[in-house]
Structure formats: C-alpha cells, structure tokens
C-alpha cells in the first residue's frame, strides 16, 4: 500500500518529461524493428538474392551488397545482435559493477581499499586492447562470448558510481535506525539501501547498455566480430573491406551507423530525462 503512491508520482513525472519520451520512442522503434523486420524478409544475411550493388529499390529496401546480399536482412539481424550485446554485455557490466560497488561501499575499510584499487586498475587499462587480444586468439567467436567479454571489462564505471552512492546512503541515519531495529546487514542492504538506488541502478544500466553497443561495434569493425551471423559493426567492416566507399554504395554502411548512433544517443537522452524525473530536488521545485 505504501509504494503505490510513490510509483504513480514517478510515473506521472516520467510521462511528462519529453526527453524521456523521445529517447524511449527511438529505442522502442528499433526494438520493434528487430522483431518485426525478419518477417518481411525470407532471406538469410549471407544468401545471394539478387544483382550486386543495387541501390535501394522497392524490391530490396536497403539495396544489395557487392555480392548481391540483401542489406535490409543483414541490417535487421544485425540489430538483433546489437540489442543482444547491449542486454548481455550491459547487464553483466552493471551486475558486476553493482556487486563491487555495493560491497565496497557498505563494508568500507580494507575490503573497500582492495576493491577500489582493482576498479581503478581495470578502469585505466584500455579494455578494448584486452578484448582485441582475447578475440584474436579465439577460433570461434559468437555474439554471446563477445558480450560476456565486454561485460567483464565494462563494469568499473558502474562500480565507482554505485560505491559513491552506497557510501552516502550508508551514513544516513535511517540505516542506523534499521540496525537498531535488529535488522541483519543483508536485509538492510536489500530493503533499505537498494530501493533508494533503483533509479540509479536503472540509469547505470542504460549507460552500460549504450557503452556495450559502441564497444561491440568497434570490435566487429576491426574484424574481431562474431565468426558466424551478422552484426551492425560487421556490416560496416564488410562495407569498408569491399570498398563500398569508392563504389559509392552508401546504402551499405549508412543504415548500420544510423541505427547505432540513434539507439545509443536515445539512451543517453533518456538518461538525462530519467535524472530529472528521479531527482526529487527538481521535482519539488
């Protein structure tokens, strides 16, 4: 009974925040495209469906590649891969970040010192370089393995943010009050501290989601993408390898870039909108 009032209040402000609405609309559009898209095309990404290097036409909405593959099919399936990387990579990154951040923030002392140093180290190392080496050595690379690697190296940002947030919440009196009510530390973290950070966790996830997509696209572009299947980064890589530029086949490399930029950009804008919604100071005004 106590939570409804708070939830409806947040919802009320969320719906009126246009940054959030725009961001959400763009992301949902691409999400729908991911599910609906494959219905419109019966080819698979690598099939040779028609004459090569065709500009977009009613027959091939996004035209065809130098090998006559249907760009639209590649685009739609590439989208699926991108979202998968975002969810798995971003999700894993947030999860590890939350765990490290929570434990370091709540425990404090030596535990915090060690975890914090670890976070700083992983933060400083250019994680892409590590991914490079790992991916290069792997014989078979699937979308899943790539996402897991990205997740395992993208968590420091989340860990730092959540650690700071936990620190500030831990020193609040209501945590002491909970301890004086005989609650065990684990219960305190999940019933007292975590709910306060729900908005924070969600925003961290959005940033991780966007970050994962960008890293994945870069990896695929360098040629370390999934050996089987297709992804937006891989499309761009192929486009460059087969000199789509010189042949003026803009329809091959423009759509994937637009999709990535739109999704990640929409996520960032959503994040700003959410910040305004969840920030009580702004709401109280």
């Amino acid at each position: 009974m106590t939570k409804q009032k708070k939830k409806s209040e947040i919802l009320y402000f969320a719906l009126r925040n246009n940054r959030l609405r725009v961001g959400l609309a763009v992301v949902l559009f691409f999400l729908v495209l991911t599910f609906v898209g494959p219905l419109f095309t019966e080819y698979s990404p690598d099939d040779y469906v028609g004459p090569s290097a065709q500009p977009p036409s009613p027959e091939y909405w996004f035209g065809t590649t130098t090998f006559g593959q249907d760009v639209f099919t590649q685009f739609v399936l590439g989208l699926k891969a991108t979202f998968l990387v975002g969810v798995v990579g971003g999700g894993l990154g947030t999860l590890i970040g939350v765990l490290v951040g929570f434990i370091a923030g709540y425990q404090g002392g030596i535990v915090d010192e060690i975890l914090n140093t670890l976070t700083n180290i992983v933060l400083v190392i250019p994680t892409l370089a590590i991914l490079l080496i790992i991916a290069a050595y792997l014989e078979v690379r699937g979308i899943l393995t790539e996402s897991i690697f990205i997740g395992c190296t993208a968590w420091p940002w989340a860990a730092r943010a959540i650690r700071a947030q936990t620190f500030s919440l831990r020193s609040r009196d209501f945590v002491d009050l909970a301890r004086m009510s005989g609650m065990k530390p684990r219960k305190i973290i999940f019933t007292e501290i975590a709910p306060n950070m729900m908005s924070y966790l969600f925003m961290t996830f959005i940033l991780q989601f966007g970050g994962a997509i960008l890293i994945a696209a870069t990896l695929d572009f360098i040629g370390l993408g999934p050996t089987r299947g297709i992804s937006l980064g891989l499309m761009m890589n192929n486009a460059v390898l087969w000199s789509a530029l010189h042949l003026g086949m803009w329809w091959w490399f423009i759509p994937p870039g637009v999709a990535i930029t739109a999704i990640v950009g929409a996520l960032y804008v959503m994040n700003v909108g959410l910040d305004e919604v969840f920030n009580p100071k702004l709401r109280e005004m």
Partner: protein
Amino acid sequence: MLRLDGLSKVYKVGTFGGKELHAVSDVTFDVRDREVVSLIGESGSGKSTIGKMILRLIPESSGMIRFNGVDISTLKGGALKEYYRNVQGVFQDPFSSYNPIFKADRVFGMIREEFYPEMKDHEWNDKIDSSLKAVGLNPDDVLDKFPHQLSGGQLQRFLIARALLLDIQFLVADEIISMLDASTRIDVLNLLADLKSRGLSILFITHDLSLGYYISERAVILYRGCVVEMGSTERIFDNPLHPYTTMLMAAVPRLDKKWEQVEVELKAKQSEYTGGCAYYERCPLADKDRACATERPTLIEAERDHFVACRKL
C-alpha cells in the same frame, strides 16, 4: 541502569591511517534508573560518538559499557536484539532518519517485523495509537504520510513513539531538537521529561546549556573527548568550577543577562580555582608547572554529588 567505564574511541586518519584521532578518551559516568542525564559539549567533543557506542552502532576502542551489569560488547545476534528492545535512540536530523521512498510509518513496520511478528493487526494498531497519543500526536493526521509531508517536530515525536512500542528502559536523544524551531522544541523537551515518569532513563546529548539545564538532573560536560566536569545540574550551573565550563557559561547567549554581567559574576565567584588538563593550552588559569600538562586530572568530589576533573582544586 547504564555504566560507562574508561570508554575510548580512536579513529585512524590520514592516507595510510598514519595519525590517530582520539574522539573519546577514558570517559566514565553512569545513568541511574528514571534519570535524565545531559551530555553537554561543543561540536567535536565526541558526545555523538559516545551516543553511537551506547547504541552499538560503532565499536568502542577500549573501556566498557555495562547495561544493567551486562557488558554490551559481548551481546551477539538474539541477545543484541533483546538489548535493542530496552535501549533505543533518536537522532538529530529528522529527515535523514526516514527512508525517503517509503511512508513515515514504515519505521513502525520494521519494529513489528523484527519484534512482534505474531501480533495480530487490530492489537498492533491499538498499540500504535496509544504510543502516538503518548507523544501527543493525532494518529489520523500523521499516519500514511511521506516524511516530507510531516514537520520536523512531528517526525521526531514519531521516532519517540516508535521507541515506546518496545518496552524500552533507556533512550539516547542525540541533539534531537537542534533542527527544530523554538516553539516546537519545547513540546518535544516536555515529552522527554514526561517519559521519565514512565520509568525511562534518558541520555540527552546537546550543545545548548540552557536546554541541558531545563531538562536534566545531572549533567556531564565534555571537552575534546574528556569529561571535564560532572554532577548535579544546578550545582554545575550555579557554581561552575572547571575553566572550560566557566567559559561556556560566559559565552552562551542568555535572555536574562548580558554577556558582560555574566562575566563579572563568574570572575567574582571562581577567582580562586585554576588548572585544567586537555583544556591546558586554552586554559587561562593553568600555571606553567608541568603537572597541568602532563598528568591527567581525575574526577574528585569538590562537594556532595559534584565532581570535577581539575588538578588545581
């Protein structure tokens, strides 16, 4: 009821914890049954640290706290929970004592989950209504509200009502009225004084001498973690012995006397007393023999039920 023996708390500070900060050093006093003791000290005197140690929120570095004869540092799990059934605390900032995203009466819910899980609803609601009335709150206009919809005074009384749900014997009130307005402050103070009649002992932590005087029978004056003066409130206020207490009495703005008058009076009364310990470097009266600086003064009974820790008396 509650006895502190040689209680100390040392914090590690500096990048590698090089230096040590003695927040509380060797504090000894007790709170008897049905008694209000005020713990008076300026910011940084360690008074809140003592409060938190009594509530077992931070571990003590050395010394012992005994509640009804039992050393509380040994309490674990169930025993600790029983301790919280008898000892509770209320903090300074009402708005930080409530989890902002829940309703205010969730603090009651927490007590019920932990201490009275099997109590039936109507019985529990009656218990809440009676304790709310005991603190002078009307259940209808405080229940089912978010913390930011209630005033500071209501929130503090809400916390006291929460403590009354348990059959507590000892309450730590850590600066609970310093964030409230003058007019609501008095009602909360009167409430604390009334609780004494219900058999409660209270440790009233404050930096405001007049509030301490108004409510407590005995007072403990703290300076940088050490007890400099202790005893019955009237005696200390009428005849402050320790130079630090005298300085405090002279500095506090009063409504009946101007600062100059107070200084003149105090000068006349205590010209013959000198000396101090932690107060050494600020103490105008300590003569320069090493004793004042080196040896720690012990609390001696200057007059009946009036102790002071000062080598020069």
